[in-house]
């Protein structure tokens, strides 16, 4: 059983690492995206120039 477990570990490790790395990348990317999303909403609510650009350019594409 131990030998089978060792053999399984050898086979499954690449997938485990691959999926963990991608999960982390997605989570990081999502954090950044949500941060930018929040900032953009803040900019727009505050009526800054940047917010105006964001709104004009992206409002039709992003359902705020």
């Amino acid at each position, binding site marked *: *059983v131990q030998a089978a477990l060792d053999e399984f570990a050898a086979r499954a490790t690449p997938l485990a690492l*691959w999926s*963990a790395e991608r999960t982390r990348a997605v*989570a990081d990317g999502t954090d950044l995206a949500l941060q930018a999303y929040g900032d953009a909403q803040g900019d727009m609510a505050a009526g800054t120039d*940047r917010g105006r650009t964001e709104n004009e350019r992206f409002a039709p594409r992003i359902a705020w």
Partner: protein
Amino acid sequence: VRRLVAPVPGARIDTESVFDAARAVSSAAETHASTGADASVSWLRVGDGYSAPESQQLMSAMTPVRMATEGFAGAAQAVARALTTFALEAEAAQAKQVRATSAISSFRAVATGSDSWQDDPALVAQNTRLTAEAAAAERELCEAEEACARAIAAIPVDAPAPVSTAGTLGAGAPLGGNGTWGYPDGVVEVAINPLFFLGKTPEDVTAWWNGLSAEAQAAFVASFPAIVGNRDGIPAKVRDEANRARLSSLRTQLEGDEDRLTEIMSSTPETRDTFSLYGGHLLRLQNPEWSEAFSELARVRENLAAIDALTQVVDSDAPPRFLLVADLSGRVPRAAVAVGNPDEATHLGVLVPGTSTTVATKMSELDSEAADIYAKAREQSRVPGDSISVVAWLDYEAPPELINATSRSYAQKGSPDLATFSAGLGATNTVGEPRITLMGHSYGAVVAGDAAAETAAGVDSLVVYGAPGAGSNIADGVDKFAMLAPDDPILRYHASLGNLGALGEVPYPQWVTTSMIDPVSGYLDMADGWEQLPVTGSPSSGESWSEESSGHSQYLKNQSRSQFNLVQVLLGNEPSR
């Protein structure tokens, strides 16, 4: 000689440890899967509010993450199950061994020290039975062990997804490629961040694009055409290549949708329920599935018709066409096609059409008007080295009916996109500062005028014809020209609503309708800074341009004075007054 049954060794499998190991593996698997699922789900939260053309591709990029974490977790759970099964079977086998142990100890106490038990058939039988029992228990234990090992060995583990040439993100590359997921550096971080372009001007986009390696640029075209295809600030050739590639995949997708929706509609009754009301009236309740499929099918077919129209236009032989925008993600299809390479043009014209124009119904006509202007401008050009490009721009939702054309809202939505588009033409132009002329017809004049209000749009001239209004606050330095046929029914709009200014300033000083429509006349507020160009009679410099444009929709008629003037403005020449 019979052998006395051997003493049973203590339980050699610590089943509690096996249970613990199974639990640990199972909980690790669960954590792995839920982390992956959380990442996908939190991403989808962004997706809820995000509907760019590339969103579908971005969402599908998350699928491998979920699949890989689920795949690993599934395999690990199978290991946990195999270990649990083994622990249970080992426990049962070892319980039998324990039961045998006490019997064997008692028997051995009696039998040891004398071989006389061999003469007692009852004791011999007991010895045989106990030996068999001990052996059976041990065999059971071994079998359980072997079954567990076999089960673990048989658990399939997917390899990390192989490199895909189909270009789906994350169908991906092995670990340790050059950049993330095997894409060149600088690709994935942009592809997975839906807000990367937020707040970036076309000039920023051009600078970003020029800073990418050739491999990264190629990866965007091959794998993420939706990200670059419609993006202002990306070179025209790149947009064209990406968008042409997208047309065929979009068509395949839409045809699949059409089949699916047709199937739903044919297998779902239109009516869910019918009630009789007072007076014999019937109340019919429509099946929501049918009704959803019905409206979705209409949208799908509109998009397919748009693809047909675009395919026909971009496949025109000469001059070359550049598919700068193909956007089927919104309520109506939107597109822009350039005749001649805009990045190499010294003189750029952008045709902005008006009410009820759609990609499916109008792109072909608008493209041939653009091609005519392109040809006439080349013919009229007096400066060696001048090069022309004329864009048929339908990248906005035009008012569907004349009745909607009194609202500014369509222009409010469309003009920022036109301004950015125009700025993008300037950003990617390789000959320096191109001369940009916006040409707005009818409601398109409102969109073009409002776009020309943006200094960043870099508009040099604005020509409007048959305009109900021409937007407001047009930027300083923009040359403004207006044309109006004496029998253009848009005069009725001027008479009724012109002075209210709902569609911006009216670029004509007065309205005088002729007998072709109700003969009424009046004055508008003087159109400040607008130069009126005639649409009848031939210009002094060209006798052959004597075609007159009449009504609302002949301003671009070949060899007409209005077309002549449009061409002169495009070329930066003096128009004929």
